[in-house]
């Protein structure tokens, strides 16, 4: 059930984009349905959690990596999940009326549900790796939501900034979480929370703490990362209300609360978290007072309140944690209402500039009432819920000693509260109070009920909790018990008696009123005060990062393959050297095999030929001839070292390669120009020599030792498991059949891609160059010599029989579909060479494309056939048959699979050569319709007819 709840928004996200075709109401309704459904399901689980139980659900995913999709629901999770879903519903309603007809609403709701799902995932995850995934998902989906109005540059910039800040914080958190998981030895949140003492005594505690806090602080916009939140206000107001007041920015706070039992209570925690929170709270409150943009004011106020929450959690005491939980609820109610109010004002008057507003109370009384109630709560005026938690916060500060100083925290907290009162009152008086003006950009009036219903509902909560705090008591206790790990049963009340907190509250309210009165002169002072502009600093930092990465990219990826190879090879050699010098190597266990003189000659030829290619590679044709020597020597080496399969394949591949290269060389310059200086070539030469020597010595060392490899298993199981004695073939078609299946598909794709590229090339500008190419100079007039035609005709059936033979015996003797395909393609190529393209092509009935297709299909069907026998894909079967008078023989499905390999190889090779040879005809080559230049039979016939 928990998993269903977590998945519902993601499934639901598929719907709005489609439902928008049925109209905006349908779209909004279908967004609300999954949310509502999830909320209802959550509520059925609620009683169990309220009784102190924990609901769990687990889905094995990658247990080897400690990754399982496990979810759990405790008090804290329930509180957040119901907040996310509840506010999500309200926002869906609000956005329906807020978005104009021009906005793509389907997209908006899809993003919204994606975000909702990600957020829900964070609060329900029981696995920190899973939590991290959802964490990053919220960053991504919020990027989409902030940049929703793609036409606004501020929207795009704000979205990028938010993603950069929260994303990099997320990266730091991944590192921190991994350290944490390592300390505990489990990635399960439940285990981690239970291992608080172990974590705090670990020497890795501080790094883990700092990294995790970086993630939490960036997400929750704590100083000095607070700057992204105001810029994210370029988003549509429903997004601001949902992400930037109620849910996403609370994710950081949630994480600190979640990790509270594991990480809190140390000096490091107190000084880092509480101090950051305190600074953020005061700074945010001060800046908020001087912002004229309604949403900017609310954004900085949110920063300030998040600071307050962070500070409370930083105190590390249980009472402070209770206050924090209570304030999370209260802040949600009044701040979401305020954002929606700001959105309504913007919607109706077409401006958010406080300096252009005022007197709206008479024009839009309902909105004014909602705004006033919410703002008073934000100010911390009695009988509204903000007062209660603020009082608790102030009370807690009086117990806090900071660096031996008992009054600095309460004093600063009161100072922050004072500014908080001031900006809250400014919101009321400068927007709704004062005389009605006649210069609004648009004449305002109250919006339709659908728009004010959502904030009004929140305001009812504000007042209800404010007047009757016992309503919220069980919820707060439930969540606070989950945070602290100790059952909490305190109760909330309005009147705490005459205590320091009361005086601080009174001082804050009085000071706030005074501050608002002298706001105008203060504003002028603020305007001329120098202050760092976060956006400029951020842009400069990003600029540096971009130029640094660009430098790195340009230095390593300059487009020259020699550079890539040099980097790759040097790195590999260095790694090999490190590995080599690190581990000990056992003494050699094998004797060096004797080297007969002829073998030495073969080796000598190989070395000389290889060296010559390096020296002579600029003369391309000569290099090709020398490559022929190399291929021949390698193939005979394979035969000598008892690898006939490899030799068969090698010699066929060599032949096909040479033909392919010759075909291409016809249209290429016959000389390679020098492209690099002597020094560079020397460098590359040294690198290549080191790499070659390294590989050779590695091979030498390994071949002198018996190393336990998988070969033993293959040898032992080839006959019994795969039904064949040719281990190489059994590996190809059975043990690693999946590999082979993938490879023939890749080969087929390569063949088709060459065909397609050549097609595009021959219809493009290159075709013009080809047509102007003069290739006719100095050529033999013996185009299709009689001797060659006759020889290849004789060879054809022999080669085909050899191919079939190699194919058939492949399972038990050297051979198989791959080699057979190559042999037959060589037989066909001979005909092409002898009698020309057109003559041969006319006699070729099956298209090569089809052949590739059939190959892959046959192999696939053979593999799928295993399903009929109830076995996994590509399991091969074999049996022995006896039909007199034939001797007993074996039939294996592997042979059918091999047929697929055969067809795919044949088709691909032929298609490649076919495609390359098409170039010649574009270049204006004529074709021959006769099989040979001069057919003696014709002459005899002609003479007879003449008679």
């Amino acid at each position: 059930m928990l998993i269903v709840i977590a998945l519902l928004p993601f499934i639901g996200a598929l719907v709005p984009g489609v439902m928008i075709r049925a109209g905006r109401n349908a779209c909004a309704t279908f967004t609300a349905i999954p949310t509502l459904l999830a909320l209802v399901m959550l509520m059925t689980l609620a009683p169990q959690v309220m009784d102190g139980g924990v609901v769990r659900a687990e889905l094995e995913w990658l247990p080897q990596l400690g990754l399982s999709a496990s979810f759990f629901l405790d008090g804290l999770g329930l509180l957040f999940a119901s907040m996310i879903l509840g506010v999500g519903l309200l926002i869906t309603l609000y956005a329906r009326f807020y978005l104009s007809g021009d906005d793509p609403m389907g997209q908006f709701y899809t993003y919204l549900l994606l975000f909702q799902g990600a957020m829900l995932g964070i609060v329900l995850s029981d696995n920190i790796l899973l939590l991290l995934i959802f964490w990053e998902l919220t960053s991504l989906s919020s990027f989409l939501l902030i940049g929703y109005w793609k036409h606004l540059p501020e929207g795009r910039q704000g979205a990028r900034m938010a993603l950069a800040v929260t994303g990099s914080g997320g990266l730091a958190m991944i590192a921190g979480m991994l350290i944490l998981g390592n300390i505990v030895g489990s990635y399960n949140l439940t285990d981690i929370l239970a291992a608080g003492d172990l974590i705090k005594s670990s020497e890795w505690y501080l790094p883990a703490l700092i990294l995790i806090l970086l993630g939490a602080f960036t997400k929750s916009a704590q100083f000095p990362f607070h700057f992204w939140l105001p810029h994210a206000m370029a988003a549509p107001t429903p997004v601001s209300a949902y992400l930037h007041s109620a849910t996403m920015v609370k994710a950081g706070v949630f994480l600190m609360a979640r990790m509270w039992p594991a990480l809190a209570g140390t000096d490091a925690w107190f000084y880092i978290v509480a101090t950051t929170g305190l600074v953020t709270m005061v700074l945010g409150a001060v800046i908020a007072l001087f912002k004229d943009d309604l949403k900017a004011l609310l954004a900085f106020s949110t920063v300030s309140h998040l600071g307050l929450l962070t500070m409370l959690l930083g105190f590390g005491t249980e009472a402070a944690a209770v206050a924090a939980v209570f304030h999370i609820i209260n802040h949600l109610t009044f701040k979401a209402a305020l954002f929606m109010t700001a959105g309504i004002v913007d919607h109706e008057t077409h401006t958010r500039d406080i300096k252009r507003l005022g007197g709206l109370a008479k024009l839009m009384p309902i909105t004014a009432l909602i705004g006033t109630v919410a703002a008073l709560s934000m100010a911390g005026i009695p009988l509204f819920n903000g007062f209660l938690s603020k009082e608790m916060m102030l009370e807690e500060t009086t117990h806090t000693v900071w660096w031996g100083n008992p009054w600095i925290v309460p004093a600063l907290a009161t100072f922050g509260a004072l500014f908080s009162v001031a900006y809250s009152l400014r919101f009321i008086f400068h927007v709704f109070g004062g005389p009605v003006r006649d210069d609004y950009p648009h004449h305002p009036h109250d919006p339709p009920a659908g728009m004010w219903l959502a904030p009004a509902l929140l305001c009812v909560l504000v007042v209800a909790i404010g007047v009757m705090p016992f309503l919220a008591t069980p919820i707060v206790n439930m969540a606070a018990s989950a945070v602290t790990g100790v059952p909490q049963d305190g109760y909330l009340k309005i009147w705490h008696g005459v205590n320091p907190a009361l005086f601080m509250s009174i001082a804050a309210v009085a000071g706030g009123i005074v501050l608002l009165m002298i706001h105008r002169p203060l504003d002028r002072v603020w305007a001329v005060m120098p202050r760092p502009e976060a956006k400029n600093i951020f842009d400069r930092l990003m600029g540096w990062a971009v130029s640094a990465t660009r430098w790195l990219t340009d230095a390593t990826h300059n487009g020259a393959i020699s550079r890539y190879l040099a980097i790759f090879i040097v790195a590999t050699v260095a790694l090999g050297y490190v590995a080599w010098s690190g581990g000990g190597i056992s003494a050699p266990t094998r004797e060096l095999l004797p080297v007969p003189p002829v073998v030495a000659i073969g080796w000598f030829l190989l070395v000389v030929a290889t060296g010559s290619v390096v020296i002579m590679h600029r003369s391309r044709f000569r290099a090709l001839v020398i490559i022929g020597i190399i291929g021949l020597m390698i193939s005979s080496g394979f035969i000598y070292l008892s690898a006939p399969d490899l030799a068969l394949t090698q010699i066929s591949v060599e032949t096909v390669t040479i033909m392919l290269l010759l075909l291409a060389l016809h249209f290429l310059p016959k000389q390679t120009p020098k492209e690099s200086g002597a020094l560079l070539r020397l460098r590359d030469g040294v690198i290549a020599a080191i790499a070659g020597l390294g590989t050779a010595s590695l091979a030498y060392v390994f071949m002198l030792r018996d190393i336990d490899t998988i070969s033993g298993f293959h040898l032992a199981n080839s006959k019994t498991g795969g039904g064949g004695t040719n281990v190489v073939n059994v590996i190809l078609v059975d043990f690693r059949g999946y590999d082979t299946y993938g490879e023939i598909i890749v080969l087929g794709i390569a063949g088709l891609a060459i065909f397609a590229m050549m097609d595009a090339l021959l219809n493009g500008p290159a075709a013009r160059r080809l047509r102007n190419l003069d290739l006719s100079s100095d050529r033999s007039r013996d185009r299709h010599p009689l001797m060659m035609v006759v020889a290849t005709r004789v060879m054809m059936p022999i080669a085909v029989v050899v191919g079939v033979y190699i194919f058939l015996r492949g399972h038990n003797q050297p051979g198989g579909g791959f080699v057979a395909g190559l042999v037959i393609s060589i037989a066909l190529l001979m005909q092409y060479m002898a009698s020309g393209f057109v003559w041969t092509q006319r006699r070729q009935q099956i298209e090569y494309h089809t052949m590739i297709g059939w190959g892959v299909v046959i192999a696939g069907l053979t593999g799928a056939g295993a399903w009929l026998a109830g076995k996994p894909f590509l399991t091969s079967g074999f049996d022995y048959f006896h039909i007199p008078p034939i001797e007993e023989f074996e039939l294996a499905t592997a042979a059918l699979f091999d047929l697929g390999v055969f067809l795919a190889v044949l088709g691909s090779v032929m298609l490649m050569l076919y495609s390359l040879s098409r170039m010649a005809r574009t270049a204006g080559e004529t074709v021959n319709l006769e099989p040979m230049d001069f057919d003696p039979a014709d002459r005899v016939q002609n003479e007879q007819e003449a008679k």
Partner: protein
Amino acid sequence: MIYMALYFAIGCYGIGLVFNLWRIARGPDAADRILGLDTMVINVIALLILFGILKGTAMYYEAAMLVAMVGFVSTVAYCRFLLRGDIIE
């Protein structure tokens, strides 16, 4: 006796390979090189058969046959390239 003959023959073909290499290296023109390579293929075929006799297995004969079958194809291709430029017209 047979072994002595075999070793002698193997030695001769081995030296033959070195001479082929010399021809391929010296040239003087492309046709000499192609011929050198073709001869080298034939020498290798001979060596494979001799090895087969020496070891008493049929596997080498087969390999030799296959080399013989496909070995001349590349020679043809080289020649066609020299004579006509395009090997498949």
